[in-house]
């Protein structure tokens, strides 16, 4: 039991040495780390609460939300009156000054039209308050005006959705532990740890990521299109990369498939090694895409992102598999960004960055300094206590814990994990259990000595019996940690990551590593009695 072969010792020491080496960059200044080769840059990132980071203030335009609502309303009114039964013919539709007005062609149908529109203007709440007011002017023109309360609630729900979308996008980017808060009525605060590249973040959050596929209107007169006029049922959209040289293109108003029907988006490459985005539709979207492409072989369709045409490829054959590619002069980075944005859904409203700053640690620099001092004192106190309780063995345990801390940092560095205050709590817990493992072993050895076993037998037994207990306790711990990691988010997740890493390393250092040291000492000195 106490004999370790050279190989076994090497197998135990080597991973620990690697772990400790990987922890070193975390203690070096930035400039030094930057000079190290890439694989040596294994640093633990500190979270927002510990080291601060970048702060972005995003603002949604309330008018934008109102305008969009009016556009949706227009769409709904059209469908309701033109498609419903009986049909009501309308014309002169205009949305100006934040109002939607249209004329009912048959004056006798005005009342019926108002009746049909009313349900569309009802608020979602139970208060019975209206989102829009409907009135009839000049006996045949109906004017729909959004109410203030309606706009307010629309902005509120748009902001809630936007906050969630932003949270998803930042998570997808791999940034851990951001702070995302709504501020005031129409602003969102985003804080991310570290100072690396806020531009990429700004680009990502600035994209609305409204993706649409529409057919190109090939019947349109090119010269009219160039002047911005499109035939009925079509619209003119900017198309910067248009091969014909005119930076606009006419497309049908009707949407073939939109971003809502996506299930996945990933960055990839096409045959000529150009960066593209591969997308996959859900079954309804896939079916519709297949249908439209089958009916329009040899005609072009436009891929439209945020109201701009990215590319307008030809439909060479029906696209039936439910997946498609988006091409359009991407770099690998911009393609990846678009993929992330598409995966996390479109923003319900466009956001603009109105403020950008560097912020200090969320906990306050003073608190962190105090915390550091307190931690040092805590470590010294625990180490001293272990020494006065177990003498030589206490020092072995201290050595094991010190190595354990470094190895945990090393592993976190390798994984690029972020350390936050909850993470530190996980740290404290693993160090506590690591100390506890040694306490278990040593108390067991004391017990076995009291029962009259000789030194070697007591140590052997102590390790054997205590190892089982330690193993049991850590397996249960790992189960708890695993569940928290899988289901939790934010602080629960940050805690669980450190806990799981710590469980793996602390069993190894507290049991296996101290055993090697103790065995080595026993073999060298052959003690007849031990002080424990």
């Amino acid at each position, binding site marked *: 039991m106490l004999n370790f072969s050279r190989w076994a010792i090497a197998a135990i020491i080597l991973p620990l040495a690697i772990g400790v080496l990987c922890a070193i960059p975390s203690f070096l200044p930035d400039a030094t780390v930057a000079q190290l080769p890439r694989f040596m840059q294994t640093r633990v990132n500190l979270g927002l609460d510990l080291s601060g980071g970048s702060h972005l203030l995003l603002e949604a335009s309330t008018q934008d939300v109102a305008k969009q609502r009016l556009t949706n309303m227009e769409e709904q009114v059209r469908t309701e009156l033109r498609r419903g039964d009986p049909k009501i013919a309308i014309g002169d539709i205009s949305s100006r000054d934040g109002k939607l007005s249209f004329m009912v062609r048959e004056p006798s149908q005005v009342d019926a039209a108002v009746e049909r529109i009313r349900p569309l203007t009802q608020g979602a709440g139970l208060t019975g308050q209206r989102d829009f007011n409907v009135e009839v002017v000049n006996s045949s023109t109906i004017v729909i005006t959004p109410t203030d309360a309606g706009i307010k609630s629309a902005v509120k729900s748009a902001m809630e959705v936007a906050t969630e979308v932003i949270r998803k996008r930042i998570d997808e980017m791999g940034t851990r532990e951001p702070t995302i*808060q709504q501020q005031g009525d129409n602003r969102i605060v985003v804080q991310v740890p570290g100072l690396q590249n806020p531009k990429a973040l700004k680009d990502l959050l600035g994209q609305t990521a409204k993706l649409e596929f529409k057919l190109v209107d090939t019947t349109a007169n090119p010269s009219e299109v160039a002047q911005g006029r499109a035939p009925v049922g079509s619209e003119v959209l900017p198309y910067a990369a248009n091969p014909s040289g005119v930076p606009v293109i006419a497309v049908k108003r009707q949407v073939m498939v939109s971003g809502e029907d996506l299930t996945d988006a990933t960055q990839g490459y096409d045959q000529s090694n150009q960066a593209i985005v591969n997308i996959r539709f859900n079954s309804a979207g896939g079916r519709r895409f297949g249908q439209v492409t089958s009916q329009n072989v040899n005609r072009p369709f436009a891929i439209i992102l945020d109201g701009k045409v990215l590319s307008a490829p030809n439909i060479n054959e029906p696209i039936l598999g439910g997946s498609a590619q988006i091409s359009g002069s991407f770099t690998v980075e911009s393609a990846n960004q678009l993929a992330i944005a598409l995966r996390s859904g479109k923003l319900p409203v466009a956001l603009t960055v109105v403020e950008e700053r560097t912020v200090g640690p969320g906990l306050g620099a003073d608190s962190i300094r105090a915390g550091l001092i307190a931690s040092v004192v805590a470590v010294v106190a625990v180490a001293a206590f272990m020494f006065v309780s177990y003498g030589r063995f206490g020092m072995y345990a201290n050595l094991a814990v010190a190595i354990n801390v470094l190895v945990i940092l090393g592993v976190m560095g390798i994984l690029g994990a972020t350390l936050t205050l909850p993470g530190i709590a996980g740290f404290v817990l693993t160090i506590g259990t690591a100390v506890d493992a040694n306490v278990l072993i040593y108390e067991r050895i004391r017990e076995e000595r009291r029962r009259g076993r000789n030194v070697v037998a007591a140590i052997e037994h102590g390790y054997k019996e205590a190892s089982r207990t330690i193993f049991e306790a850590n397996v249960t711990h790992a189960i708890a940690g695993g569940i928290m990691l899988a289901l939790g988010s934010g602080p629960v997740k940050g805690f669980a990551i450190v806990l799981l890493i710590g469980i793996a390393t602390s069993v190894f250092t507290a049991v296996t590593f101290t055993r090697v040291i103790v065995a080595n000492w026993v073999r060298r000195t052959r003690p007849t009695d031990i002080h424990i």
Partner: protein
Amino acid sequence: MKLLKLVPDNTNIGFVAVRKWAFALTALLTVLAVGATAHKGLNLGVDFVGGLMIEAKFPQAVETDKVRSTIGSLGVGESSLQQFGDPKTVQIRLPLPEQGGAGAANAVVEKTRKAMTAQFPGVTFSRYDTVSGKVSGELIQNGVLAVVLAILGIAVFSWFRYEWQFGVSTFVAIVHDVLMTLGFFAITQLEFDLNIIAAVLTIVGYSINDKMVIDDRIRENMRKYRKMDMKALIDLSVNETLPRTVMTSVTILLALGSLLLLGGHVLRGFTAAMMLGIIVGTYSSVYVSSSLLISLGLSPQTSEKKAAKKGDYAGTAERVGPRDDGAKP
């Protein structure tokens, strides 16, 4: 050198004998804790419920600690400070008064402004605004679900691996620890912020560890002393592990104590929660979860059957008592 021993050798304290009292006390305290939480509620921090954001510009760089203590004396709630852009600008987050709407918010801003101007002449509030919580409701729900499932997962593991009694007693004891911690926060009205969640998780983790150690010893002794009365056996197991229980608790309390005294204001609630949790957790391991095994009807025979069926390491334990499957405890 004489080594320190906190617990004398071969203690023989009758933990099981007082279990009725322990159960009654535990039940009473738990009911109190739940009642306090339900009645007074938790003082949820800005992280959860949102609040007021004030951006303060100072004529020169300030120490956030001074700003914190100035605001702390106003009675407007726990402030959270962050250096904002440059050392002269500090962002202050405060909880919003529960009632009163916009008027109350303005009153808080005015009160803060007055006190700050007195303390730091020349300070200006460049803007203030309301902010939402840092976490959405969905995140909180997921977090709670994760923790509950983690505790359940451990109970199920204990049950499948050994006896259902171990699963139930562990579950009850850990839930008790969490409820007591929540009760502590409800009664003291210390701010319950995101970091406290981490503290609660740590308490759960520590408590699990503690219970597993004692449970494991009980199982070991059940195999060793098959004729021993269950009460005596549990007393023996708790006494045998007592040096370890005390050593570990003291070590951790030592570490937490220094954090509590020196760790500054922000860590105080966090550390207090952990300390309380460690004490409660140790208490519930020693007095509640192990004694509960008796009330749940655990007997050496149940473990005997299972061990024989599985043929696991029972055979390697040393046999002290004679084997007698027919003995009743």
